[in-house]
Every structure is written in structure tokens, then in C-alpha cells.
């Protein structure tokens, strides 16, 4: 951790700020007034279903398109009036791999080095270093057309890093990747922030990705931000936390139900759901009751609301992005 990260995130200078961003295509309102403030050296995740306006937000902030109204500043530079200064500070890895499929991995990186006006020597050094860091050295001389999705994505990110951007936009960086490649990408992204203190603006439709990576998360739905905060803050805003006790038979269940007044009882699965916030004190209270009454519980699980719950509650939709296990329970 460098010294910058010691400062509280809220007092740090804003790497990205936006107010009242609006964008429509014809009658279709894609962004309906977006306000953002993302401090330097943090990871910000913009979470939302397909078509929520995530990519449009990235396109505006990365100078690809202009907003109909509103303002956005990147490292203090206006994205419309001072686009070139913005471009010099950002790196963008889009939803679809922006690599040159007719070149090799190394040539792609050298192309970026040339476009960043690095000297030949510096360019070669930088390319070699990135190939090494992204474990692409072996494939360096291979044509990108032969690369797997995960390798293309890694190269894509490596190309973004050639110019040492201070602010990086990642538009759905792991969409379509297998679980292992996703973890590799996550690790690379996390290291960028811890090692180099860059700011990352990430869009994702995966709740666990936002949960894993982001310091702050904003939920975008129908072009509006419907919630913003840390993963924990968001989870706290919605109900659903509980301790679940399972018993051997109905007799035990009935006895226990008598002692936990607020619990919801499920005779079929022989469980009791005791509402709570999942804190240690909460859990201890449950255990104390069990101890003092001598009731034997077969198992105990703690359920904290995860971002899926948040997402479903906030966007009011059941067709939220799939999660392998929406009612994720964590045994403690």
C-alpha cells in the first residue's frame, strides 16, 4: 500500500466525477441523469442488467461519445472540451476484445507502445514486462486469432496498460470467461490498484464480481442510479439476514420454536429462521439460548443478504443476472 491509500477515500481527490449525465438515442432514454464521484485509487463498480446504460456511461466518460447534457470530468479535465487531456490519462478495455486479430500478442503491445510515442527500447521493455506479468510470454509470437477468450482479454488489458493510465475503464471485463480466467482477471485488476494506485471504473452484471473487487458499487437500472455505497452498505439497506437452525425432528423444532419468539418455523425442512444481522453478537445470542435450554440443533447456518438480494430488491426484477446460487448460504 502506498501512502495515498492511507487517506480516507472520501477525502481523496476525485478521479472521475459526473453530474446530470443524460443520453438518448431517438426516443430511447439510455441515461437519465447520472451523478458520480469516484476517488483516486479506488475500484468503482457500476452494476446493472443488460441495457441499463452501463456501456453508454463508459463511452461518455472515455470520450467515445458525447452526452446530450450534463458534465463529466476525468482527473479534472472535461471529457468534451478537453478530450485529448482525458485520453492521455485513461485506458479502456471494452466489452469486446479490442485487439488486432491479424497481429501477434507482442506486435499488439508494440503497436500500443508506438501510439503512446514510447521509444523503441522503452516499448520493447514495456511489452516484455506486460507479457511476463500477464503470463503471455509463451504465446507472445503467436497470432492473436488463435487465442482463447481468456488470453484475448488478458492481452486486451495488457494493451490498455502500455501507456500507464492512471484511470482505467473496464467494461464487463470478465463477461463470457470461464471461472478460472475470471479469477485471474480479478487478481490482475486488484493488483493494479494495490501496486500502482490506479483508479478503476468497472461495469459488470455479475454481483459477485462487484462484491469481490469494488470499494464502492452503484446500481444502474433504466438509466438511473438506484443505489450507491459499499457492498456492506448496500446489503444493509435490505432485509433478509438470518440464522437458520435445523433440527433432528419435529419435537425438537417445536421446543426450540417456543424459545425463539420471532423465528419463522418451517415444519417441512425442520428449520427455524431467526432474523438478525449476522453479527457475532447476534450469533452468540442464538447459541446462548440453545446452551441454556439444552436443545440440540443439527446444524446452524448464517445467511447474510448478498448482492443478489440487493439487486433483486432494487431493480424489482426476477430476471436478474444468473448467479449459480442465488440464496447463497455461508456455513459458519
Amino acid at each position, binding site marked *: 500500500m502506498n501512502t495515498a491509500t492511507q487517506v480516507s477515500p472520501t477525502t481523496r481527490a476525485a478521479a472521475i466525477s459526473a453530474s446530470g449525465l443524460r443520453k438518448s438515442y431517438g426516443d430511447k432514454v439510455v441515461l437519465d441523469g447520472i451523478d458520480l464521484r469516484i476517488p483516486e485509487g479506488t475500484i468503482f463498480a457500476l452494476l446493472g442488467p443488460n441495457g441499463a446504460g452501463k456501456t453508454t456511461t463508459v463511452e461518455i466518460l472515455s470520450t467515445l461519445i458525447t452526452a446530450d447534457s450534463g458534465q463529466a470530468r476525468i482527473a479534472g479535465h472535461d471529457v468534451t472540451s478537453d478530450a485529448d487531456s482525458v485520453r492521455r490519462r485513461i485506458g479502456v478495455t471494452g466489452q469486446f476484445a479490442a485487439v488486432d486479430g491479424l*497481429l501477434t500478442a507482442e506486435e499488439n503491445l508494440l503497436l500500443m507502445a508506438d501510439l503512446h510515442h514510447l521509444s523503441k527500447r522503452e516499448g520493447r521493455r514495456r511489452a516484455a514486462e506486460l507479457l511476463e506479468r500477464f503470463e503471455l510470454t509463451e504465446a507472445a509470437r503467436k497470432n492473436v486469432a488463435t487465442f482463447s477468450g481468456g488470453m484475448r482479454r488478458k492481452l486486451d488489458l495488457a494493451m490498455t496498460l502500455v501507456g500507464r493510465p492512471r484511470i482505467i475503464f473496464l467494461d464487463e471485463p470478465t463477461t463470457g470467461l470461464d471461472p478460472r480466467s475470471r479469477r485471474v482477471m480479478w487478481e490482475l485488476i486488484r493488483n493494479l490498484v494495490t501496486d500502482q494506485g490506479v483508479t478503476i471504473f468497472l461495469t459488470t452484471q455479475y454481483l459477485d464480481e462487484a462484491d469481490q473487487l469494488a470499494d464502492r458499487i452503484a446500481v444502474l437500472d433504466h438509466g438511473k442510479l438506484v443505489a450507491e455505497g459499499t457492498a456492506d452498505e448496500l446489503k444493509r439497506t435490505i432485509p433478509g439476514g438470518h440464522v437458520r437452525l435445523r433440527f433432528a425432528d419435529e419435537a425438537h423444532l417445536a421446543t426450540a420454536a417456543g424459545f425463539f419468539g420471532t423465528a419463522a418455523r418451517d415444519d417441512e425442512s425442520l428449520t427455524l429462521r431467526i432474523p438478525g444481522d449476522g453479527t457475532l453478537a447476534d450469533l452468540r445470542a442464538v447459541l446462548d439460548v440453545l446452551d441454556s435450554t439444552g436443545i440440540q440443533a443439527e446444524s446452524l447456518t448464517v445467511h447474510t443478504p448478498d448482492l443478489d438480494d440487493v439487486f433483486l430488491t432494487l431493480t424489482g426484477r426476477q430476471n436478474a443476472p444468473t448467479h449459480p446460487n442465488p440464496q447463497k448460504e455461508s456455513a459458519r
Partner: protein
Amino acid sequence: MSAATATAPATRTRSYALRDSMTMLRRNLRHMQRYPSMTISIVTMPILMLLLFVYVFGGALGTGIGAGADRGDYVNYVVPGIILMSATSGAVATAVSVCTDMTEGIINRFRTMSISRGSVLTGHVLGSVIQVTAVLTLVMGVSLAIGFRPDASPVEWIAACGLLVFLAFGLAWLSAAMGMGAKTVEAASNAPLPLTFLPFLGSAVVTPDSMPAGLRWFAEYQPFTPINETLRGLLLGTPIGNDGWIALAWCTALSLAGYLWSRAVFNREVTR
């Protein structure tokens, strides 16, 4: 870095325009070198046409260009036209490669980088000119091998090459605009086809005098006829007259129109 970049960004970008264009040119040349199928197809087409016109039609067509003319004379007549056709066939390759770039993610990467905006296009246009020059050299080599006998002086050779490069440059801008405007690569490869066909509706393979009135009028006034006649004059010593100036005017007009059209499409695509 901030101290250096504080000095007027516009000047800075302009000073890198040449360097960025050269980087893009190297990229396009590498594409051509690695995937030569496009270059091969645009070089085989005119050579096949040349052989077809000389050996299949040449005996019959030769008599049409003048009394007592034979296949040998016809080679001299048709080669400048085939050369022009080779110059136009490069347009298809340019449109396809520009369109491929525009429909793939890499263009968005370039657009978010602090590089000279036009360098993507300049790279394609210069690449196209080099590609066409290579094709023309090959076609000229084959022409000489099958009996083309130009009588041009070194100055005339230089003038002929200059005219062809100028034409290739104009066509490259025009086809770059076509490539950008096309939604798919297939559409991009079809868009410049009329251009490759145009020399035939002029003085490329037969004299316009032998055509019906309406077509003859078109053949005499379309851009490729004066260019063709100028080329023929430079290489073989036939009279050029006003055609030289008209040819230059057409090349200038093609370049200017192609450039302005490209720029307009490029800017429209950027702001969407």
C-alpha cells in the same frame, strides 16, 4: 509529464500526426504481408484480364483499333487500360480493410487514445497506395514480358508513375469512405466494384469511337478516359492534348472528394 502536457495539446497532437500515421501504415503493411491473399487477388485479376484481352480477344480487337493492327499492336493499346484497372482493384482491398477496422473493437481503442484522429485513415490510404504500387509494378512486368513496348523517356516514366500514384491516392480516399460507410465487410467489398468496371466504359480496351452514341458520350467524359489517354501518351507517345490537365483535375477532384467524404463519415461515426 504534466508540465510537458500543459503546453497546448492541439499542437502536440499535430506534431504526432505524422508519427501516428506511420505507425498505422506499418500496421497495415504488416497485415498485407501476413495475409497476402487480398494482394494476390487484386494482382491476379488484372493479369488474367491482360492475358484474356491479349490472347483471347486480342486478335479480333486489334483490327478495331486501326487498319493493319494485330495482336502485337493491341498489347500496346490495352496495357495502359489494364494498368488503370489494376489501380482501381486496390480500392476493393482498401474498403475491406477500413471496414474491418471499423467493425472491430480496435477502432474504439484508438478513439480513446491520445493519437492523431485521422492517422487510422491516413495509414490505410498510404498502405493502399503502396499496395497498388506493388501491384502495378507486377502487372507492368507481365505486360513487358508479353510484348508491351513503351517508348517513354525517363521523364515520361516518372510522369506516368506520378499520375498513377496520384490516382491511387484519390481512389484510396474514396474507397476508405466507402469502407467506413459500409455496415458489413461484404458490403464494403461490393461498394467500389463500379470503380473497377469504369475503365471498360472508356478507352481502356477499345476506342470509344466504336461505341453507340450515348455510351460514347459517357466514355469520352468519364474520368478514366483522359487518365487512360494521358498514360497512353506518356508511355507510347500518342498525342495527349488537353487530357493531361483534365486527368490531373480528375485526380485532384477524386482525392479531394474522397478525403472530405472520409472525414465527414469518420467524424459522424465518432460522435454517433
